């Protein structure tokens, strides 16, 4: 059957099982588990980004906007109105989805660098607003999620492992959404839009609607990651949550280094880059200011130069493909 398990999916399934068991074997309060949780969260973020960036090839450099909207919506609803961050997470997803839809109207005619710059500007605008509209956002000092001990209904836990499992569940959800989108009718349309927009239109694809739907779903999932981030780290401020380099570029980078538009790419990318960054910081940041970022940047450049299609390109193509040369196709069909 069409949706039969392929080797790549088995590997992914095994990875999820191994990841779910990890907290049982490492120090549940330790640094390692925090880094692992962060890597999985960035995998989920990059996978959300991948829906627009990979499937539709609209390279957004402004997804921090949706990430921040998710974090601010749930945290403000909790601090001001006492609404559980679980509900706040859904509210944040809605706010981000609406923002993405509004942003689509002026930006979807833009392509390539112009689209990237427009999305970048959008996130920057939100950062400036969050910094200056202190009555609403708390301003540049940021927001602190109160520590409540373990209160599952209020999305509060003592153990890192609880957050870890929630993040893993979110990653699984985002991956399932990506898979369903990529392999359903929507996936055909998105790929058509990515590969030839004019031909897609003439073949009956409503290219605007396809990009709009993808972008709203991508933004909503990114916002959910933002809420989880806020709950997990207990603190954020406008400059970190709407950060260009820390969030927007990193989401894109992880997906690109891992393999743009692939299911496994964002996971491999995050598992490669987040620990690498951690190690670079741990060993190099004490030697000279900025040295760790420099080394990290050089490794990124090398990775892109060595394999522009991402780490996934080193694995055999997951798509079942009949080798066209092996069959007498060419005589059979004119030409």
């Amino acid at each position, binding site marked *: 059957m069409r949706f039969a398990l392929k080797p790549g999916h088995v590997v992914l399934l095994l990875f999820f099982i191994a990841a779910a068991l990890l907290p049982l074997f490492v120090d549940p309060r330790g640094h390692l588990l925090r880094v692992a949780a962060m890597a999985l969260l960035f995998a989920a973020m990059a996978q959300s980004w991948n829906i627009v960036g990979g499937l539709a090839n609209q390279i957004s450099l402004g997804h921090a906007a949706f990430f921040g909207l998710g974090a601010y919506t749930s945290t403000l609803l909790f601090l001001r109105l006492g609404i559980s961050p679980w509900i706040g997470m859904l509210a944040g997803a809605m706010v981000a989805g609406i923002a993405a839809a509004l942003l689509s109207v002026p930006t979807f005619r833009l392509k390539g660098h112009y689209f990237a710059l427009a999305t970048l500007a959008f996130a920057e605008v939100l950062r400036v607003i969050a910094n200056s509209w202190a009555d609403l956002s708390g301003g540049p000092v940021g927001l602190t999620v109160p520590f409540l001990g373990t209160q599952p209904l209020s999305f509060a836990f003592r153990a890192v492992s609880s957050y870890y499992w929630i993040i893993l569940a979110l990653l699984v959800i985002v991956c399932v959404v990506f898979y369903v989108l990529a392999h359903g009718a929507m996936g055909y349309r998105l790929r058509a839009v990515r590969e030839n927009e*004019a031909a897609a239109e*003439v073949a*009956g694809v*409503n290219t605007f609607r396809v990009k709009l739907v993808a972008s709203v779903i991508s933004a909503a999932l990114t916002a959910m990651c933002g809420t989880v981030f806020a709950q997990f780290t207990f603190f954020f401020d406008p400059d970190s949550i709407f950060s260009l380099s820390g969030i927007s570029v990193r989401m894109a980078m992880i997906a690109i280094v891992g393999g743009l538009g692939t299911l496994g790419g964002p996971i491999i990318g995050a598992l490669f880059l987040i620990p690498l960054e951690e190690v670079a910081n741990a060993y190099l940041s004490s030697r000279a200011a900025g040295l760790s970022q420099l080394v990290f940047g050089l490794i990124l450049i090398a990775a892109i130069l060595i394999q522009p299609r991402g780490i996934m390109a080193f694995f055999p193509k997951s798509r079942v493909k009949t080798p066209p040369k092996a069959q007498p196709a060419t005589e059979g069909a004119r*030409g």
Partner: protein
Amino acid sequence: MTPTNPKVVLEAADICVTFGGLKAVDGVSFSLHQGEIVGLIGPNGAGKTTLFNALVGLQKLSGGAVRLDGETVSGLKPHRIATRGMTKTFQNAALFPDMSVLENVTTAALLRHDLKGARAKATEVLARLDLSPIADADVADLTFPQKAMVEMARALATEPRVVLLDEVMAALTPSEMDEVMDVIRALKGEGLTFLVVEHHMRAIMALCDRLIAVNFGRLIAAGTPAEVASHPTVIEAYLGHGAAGQEGSHA
């Protein structure tokens, strides 16, 4: 025009397309009747592809109107016009390069079917055009004539009533051309209407019920293939380009 069915399906009324100060299409009017194959001829740069793009909605009109079954479709997006029943092929095979042949055609069939139905429809269209053996091939691995045929399959998968064919026979051998013309005639028999741009005069003369000739964005002649081919203005348009020997045999 087929005398049995004189119903007008496509009407172009005084179509103008302007690029800056240049009038690429300048007041072109014609109609296609159901089940007709009409050839659009004219020297390179005459405005044929621009006219095609204007008809399917890829190019905004600066004047005039396009009507399908009497309803104005000019101003609609291409996918809306495809839904109304008109689509086109692309001159240089604008297939989706990272998709298989079947996936390319399935994407178009999604216009009127869910995914399962679209796959069935695409499979059917591929069989019809003798393309089943290459259904799973990547389009990057196809020869140019195969790409042109997949273009046609993709257009047919939208289940159109009017199809604009932009040089689908460009790289075909004479026997392949005959096969394609048989397919087009069979589809015409089912009520499809075609507007065809083709540089092979032999194919145009053999296939078309009528011809329309354009030059410098203007309609210069219309009528039966024999009439148009011997029309003094048409001959002058081709000879005027100073390539009489080459163009004469090719249109």
